[in-house]
């Protein structure tokens, strides 16, 4: 399977200082962290970066995070992070970080999950798996692209739906535990996936799936069953 986009080796190899400028709460357990990175080389929606924190004794912790912000946010990037139980890095972000703090980042990394806005995009995410997909949706909106884009986003309940206020007609939310009045509760199913595949835009969908491994397995099987070609399903999983 080909990568989508050639990436710059030079940007990927270089650690840069990122200064935290803003923290926005998304849900009780999720917040968005905005950084100024003046030398940021730019990225494509769907790409990720590596982030490094350094302790006073020289110990470092590094993690991969998807970029939430669209490419046109010049000199700034945003990450949306879950507060992971016992999480070493996410714990620092959620309990300690404040504007003015500096961390290090390198990237953007990998062209595989990237979406430049050229092909119809069918996006399926669960929990914080929606983050790289939101970069795509924001890119689609800010550039006024007319290539079709659809988003299926799964959350346990409305209060855990990240970016809830930003979704429009392109998005279908699926609630697995608790739903607003009149909205069914249940796992993502063929009933949501099949109509989108039936819509089939010219050239077909490029499918992007992001979420836990269990969700990614489930969603990718639904796509295959509904007729999406295996080699046009891109998956980003987290453990």
């Amino acid at each position, binding site marked *: *399977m*080909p*990568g989508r986009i050639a*990436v710059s*080796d*030079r940007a*990927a*190899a270089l650690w840069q*200082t990122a200064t935290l400028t803003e923290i926005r709460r998304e849900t009780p357990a999720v917040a968005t962290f905005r950084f100024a990175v003046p030398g940021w080389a730019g990225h494509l929606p769907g790409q990720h970066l*590596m982030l*490094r*924190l*350094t*302790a*006073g004794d*020289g*110990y*470092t*912790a*590094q*993690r*991969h995070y998807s970029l939430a912000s669209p490419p046109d946010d010049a000199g700034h990037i945003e990450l949306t992070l879950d507060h992971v139980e*016992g999480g*070493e890095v996410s714990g*620092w972000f959620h309990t*300690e*970080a404040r504007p003015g*703090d*500096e*961390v*290090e980042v*390198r990237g953007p*990394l*990998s*062209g*595989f*999950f990237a979406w430049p806005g050229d092909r119809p995009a069918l996006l399926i995410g669960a929990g914080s798996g929606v983050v790289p997909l939101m970069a795509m949706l924001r890119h689609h909106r800010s550039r006024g692209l007319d290539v079709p884009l659809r988003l299926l986003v799964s959350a346990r309940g409305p209060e855990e739906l990240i970016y809830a206020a930003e979704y429009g007609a392109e998005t279908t939310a699926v609630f697995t535990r608790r739903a607003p009045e009149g909205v069914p509760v249940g796992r993502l199913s063929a009933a949501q996936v099949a109509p989108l595949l039936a819509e089939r835009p010219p050239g077909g969908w490029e499918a992007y799936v992001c979420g836990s*491994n269990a969700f*990614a*397995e489930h969603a*990718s*099987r639904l*796509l*295959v069953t509904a007729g999406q070609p*295996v*080699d046009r*399903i*891109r*998956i*980003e*999983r*987290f*453990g």
Partner: protein
Amino acid sequence: MNVTRGFTGRPRVHLPGLPPGQYDAGDDWPVLSAEVTPDLAPADWTFRIDGLVAEPRSWDWDEAHGLPASVYEGDIHCVTSWSKFGVRFGGVSLDAFLDVVRPDASATHAVAYSHSGYTTNLPLADLTGGRAWIAWEYGGRPLPAEHGGPARLLVPHLYFWKSAKWIAGLRLLDHDEPGFWEQNGYHARGNPWEEQRYSGD
């Protein structure tokens, strides 16, 4: 050193087997494939070695299991920064396969490819000398499909994207040919101890 204000890291003991920039994933074993997990039964699995070899050949499940069993017990390291200590894989040493096909003296590299279409490149020297396996058991049980079952390549001294899941074959070459992640910005070799994560490291 750019110390992060207020960051101390989790309480830790010195772990001699932990390469720089890695953390101990404990019991977790994250799944990081970029593609759909293929529906591949052992009866449909084959493994082929060709390219610069004296006798190209393929093995099916039973033929591969007829080679001498070999176990890897040790650690594995993923470029996304988790490491996993004390894992146990069962399978066959890649040397046993290579002894049959007899690589040409001109062979310097290999491209490993999967039944899913995934590829990764390796220096031949990283695949010989008891350092690489075709593995089909994990912890004494069949290797789960999401981790590459029925059989995967195992090259534990390199970052784990080199250990191609659902391994279908090796093509031996006289030059290096970047694979899937290597074309997407990852390092050509991927030695965890030298932190060869991305191209340019």
